[in-house]
């Protein structure tokens, strides 16, 4: 398979700029690059979701036109998206049958057998009759791979496959992928994690800002080189941690129990406390109760049992408005879905939650002069890139949207900042900025509750962190006390004691 001179433009940006990319039979080709480097776009083109503005695609040397996934599938291309494309309410079998049932009646019969068969051959074990919403991220990913195999994929695209997996689950995945390579399948492995490239990649192609930087044999390179190619300069693995002293307890949580949407306990008896100036991290794989924990802390979800005490005041099941008024800021996981109001202007978004407050309200009315000057200051202070504060927020880039939220949440000098995946999917510059900013706020005396799947982020920022698994803390430690692998084990459900004992 070969892609030649692919160009794809979106309003404002050139996502892919004359990219060449080729894939050999039976190889694992890592596609490396930061978020926004154009990896996913390139693959969406290969999978027929987008059409290139320029360039051509050849398969077995023959040029092909991919107008839709249908065409791609017909040519034996399969893709496992970063965000799983599964129908949550349906069973695994139904999700597979959706595309691959041969018979109109009893559509599930024939797929089930094959699902189990693939399970055997590649170690893709999953129960065909389970409902998708009951599955773990790893299992869902297996379903996606199975779907690709059903399609008779010779070329398999894995988009950021490990972003939702524990290190151990990732190991399994690498195992599966290698087995498939032995079967003569070609795999494109999209990632921005150098470790993974080194582990599974035969070759690696590096993209930066929509351009191809290099394609090289993994065996003939090293992480630092790849990193340099990826970000264009040495990544700084350290951020400056201003001097600060840890003060009195700001937030105390006692034996907290919270249910998830399915009505099952998602947070099970969690207790912790955060002190003034402290950054308390939560490591763990998504879906282990972090979201529910955050929602409980910010008043978005009912607390079934236990107490939340803020500055000595019981705020259990207080509503988000009250909590914000008491100094709890929230940087939500779902940046665009939750954090902003896309069609309102930047300045209107800048005062979300504060529209009833002085000085933004004068009597009955909003004081737009104040709002504008306030917003313009914030825009300057957080160097948010926007033509004016009067444009709709939806016109901002992801990074700037996150900065907008950060500006809004931080500028009220909160006592507690709940930050959920604050840098997820942001480019290095923005990431760096936001991490530094959070550190600065902690130094400034805020207590920060940080949830992240990026272990680096946890290690870099937090003073203490807990590893969360299945709604419980496996233990609370300081960065450096444990190795990545040990933390990984805890993410898999081993308790701190066991890990220590084992070590």
């Amino acid at each position, binding site marked *: 398979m070969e892609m030649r001179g692919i160009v794809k433009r979106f*309003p404002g940006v050139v996502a892919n700029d004359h990219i060449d990319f080729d894939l050999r039979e039976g190889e694992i080709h890592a596609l490396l690059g930061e978020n926004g480097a154009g990896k996913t776009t390139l693959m969406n083109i290969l999978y027929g979701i987008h059409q290139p503005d320029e360039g051509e695609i050849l398969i077995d040397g023959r040029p092909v036109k991919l107008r839709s996934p249908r065409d791609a599938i017909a040519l034996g291309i399969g893709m496992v998206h970063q965000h799983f494309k599964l129908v949550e309410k349906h069973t695994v079998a139904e999700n597979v049958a959706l595309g691959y049932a041969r018979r109109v009646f009893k559509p599930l019969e024939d797929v089930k057998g094959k699902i189990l068969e693939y399970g055997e051959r590649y170690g893709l074990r999953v129960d065909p009759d389970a409902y998708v919403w009951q599955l773990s991220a790893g299992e869902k990913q297996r379903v996606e791979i199975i779907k690709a195999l059903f399609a008779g994929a010779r070329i398999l695209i894995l988009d950021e496959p490990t972003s939702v997996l524990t290190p151990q689950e990732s190991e399994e995945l690498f195992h599966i992928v290698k087995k498939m390579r032995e079967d003569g399948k070609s795999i494109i492995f999209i990632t921005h994690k150098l470790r993974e490239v080194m582990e599974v990649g035969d070759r690696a192609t590096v993209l930066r800002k929509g351009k191809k930087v290099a394609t090289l044999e993994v065996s003939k390179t090293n992480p630092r080189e790849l990193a340099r190619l990826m970000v264009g300069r040495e990544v700084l693995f350290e951020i400056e941690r201003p001097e600060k002293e840890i003060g009195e307890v700001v937030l105390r949580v006692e034996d907290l129990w919270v249910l998830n949407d399915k009505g099952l306990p998602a947070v099970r008896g969690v207790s912790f406390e955060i002190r003034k100036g402290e950054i308390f991290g939560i490591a763990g794989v998504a879906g282990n109760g972090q979201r529910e924990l955050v929602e409980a802390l910010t008043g978005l979800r009912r607390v079934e049992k236990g107490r939340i005490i803020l500055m000595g005041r019981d705020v259990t099941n207080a509503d988000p408005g009250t909590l914000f008024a008491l100094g709890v800021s929230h940087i939500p996981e*779902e940046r665009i879905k939750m954090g902003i*109001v896309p069609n309102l202007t930047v300045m209107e978004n800048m005062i979300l939650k504060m529209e009833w407050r002085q000085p933004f309200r004068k009597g009955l*009315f*909003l004081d737009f002069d104040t709002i504008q000057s306030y917003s313009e200051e914030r825009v300057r202070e957080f160097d948010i890139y926007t033509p004016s504060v009067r444009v*709709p927020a939806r016109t901002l880039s992801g990074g700037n949207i996150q900065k907008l939220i950060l500006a809004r949440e931080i500028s009220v000098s909160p006592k507690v900042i709940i930050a959920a995946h604050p840098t997820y999917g942001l480019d290095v510059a923005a990431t760096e900025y936001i991490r530094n900013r959070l550190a600065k706020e902690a130094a400034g005396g805020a207590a920060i509750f940080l949830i992240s799947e990026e272990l680096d982020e946890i290690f870099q920022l937090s003073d203490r962190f807990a590893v969360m698994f299945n709604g419980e803390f496996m233990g609370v430690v300081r960065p450096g006390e444990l190795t990545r692998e040990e933390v990984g084990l805890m993410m898999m459900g081993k308790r701190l004691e066991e890990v220590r004992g084992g070590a």
Partner: protein
Amino acid sequence: MPDGTRFARILPYRVRLEPRVEVPRTFEIQVRILAILLSLAIMTIVFLSLHINPISAFKAMFLYAFGKGILSTLSRAMTLVLIAIGLSMAFRSLFWNIGAEGQYLVGAITAFGIGRLFPNLSGYALIPLMLLGGFAAGALYGQLPAILKVKLKVNEVITTLMLNYIAIRLLYYLVYGPWNVKEVVGGVEYTGYAVTNNIPYQAQLSTVGNSTLSYAMMGLVAVFLIAEYLIMERTPLGYDFKVIGDNPEAARYAGMRFLRLTMILMLLSGGLAGLAGAGELMANQHRLRPGFASGFGFTAIIIAWLGGTNPIGILLAGIFIAGIIIGGYNFQISTGLPVGFVGIFQGVLLFSVLFGEFLRRYKVKFERW
């Protein structure tokens, strides 16, 4: 950014829709004018297909509506606009209030009831009292759907609709039952007929000449048009409404009190419909009758959409639609064509507006396959 909808391959081109990032204000207006022109064009096709001379048809409609009949048109417009103001607020925060008809009715019923209760009150007291009563009734009638939607996620389209039917039955009950007409004409007391007595004379709003266009209604419309603008564009309340309408998740995240806000919203939306009902009763009809509900609540939906987010737009849209209705009768008289055409016109117009919405939201790009 997405690739657009694919149309059938028979087309030589692939159609791509690109969302517009920023929409200039003027474009909003252009799009609406375009919508009206489009609907006129389609109606022309319709008329031609029926061997009707479109020119004379439109003349019959508009020349009268905006000429001799202008007072009638305006009078009808006032009632409709009052309802539409409330609806546009509701729609902007994604509350599908299809129940204006019912709210309008209970408004009229309550106003009538008050007039019936205090027949001897002076106009200065009675008129405001009845209008207020109308507003209050509509506002309250709108609360159930609001509460059910927020508390139990009950689809408000259904609840508001069902409440329409219930309000109509309530009207029947009152007209044939307790409030049935009892009036003495030529020494005989007449009762049992499908109507109520007049509202007290002093409660009948004075009108321009012998038309049905009342000064009070014009005043109310003016006041509430401005009020709506200020609320939606200048107050924290309107800000919250817009947030809920644009991104409910963000509203939840911002800790907005949905129940309270939705109730206030329907207080305004339902209240204005109720007020319109009271006004229609006091300015035009003076009596309740089974046919008092005559689809005003639904017509107002079209106006709210045609008018868009801008009060002047709503006013003009209201006058335009009223023109179609009033002109529609003249159209009947002079062409002898059934009144159904008015309905078709309105339907086509609404679709044209939607088409305009679409043009406002997307750039259409044609590409060769």
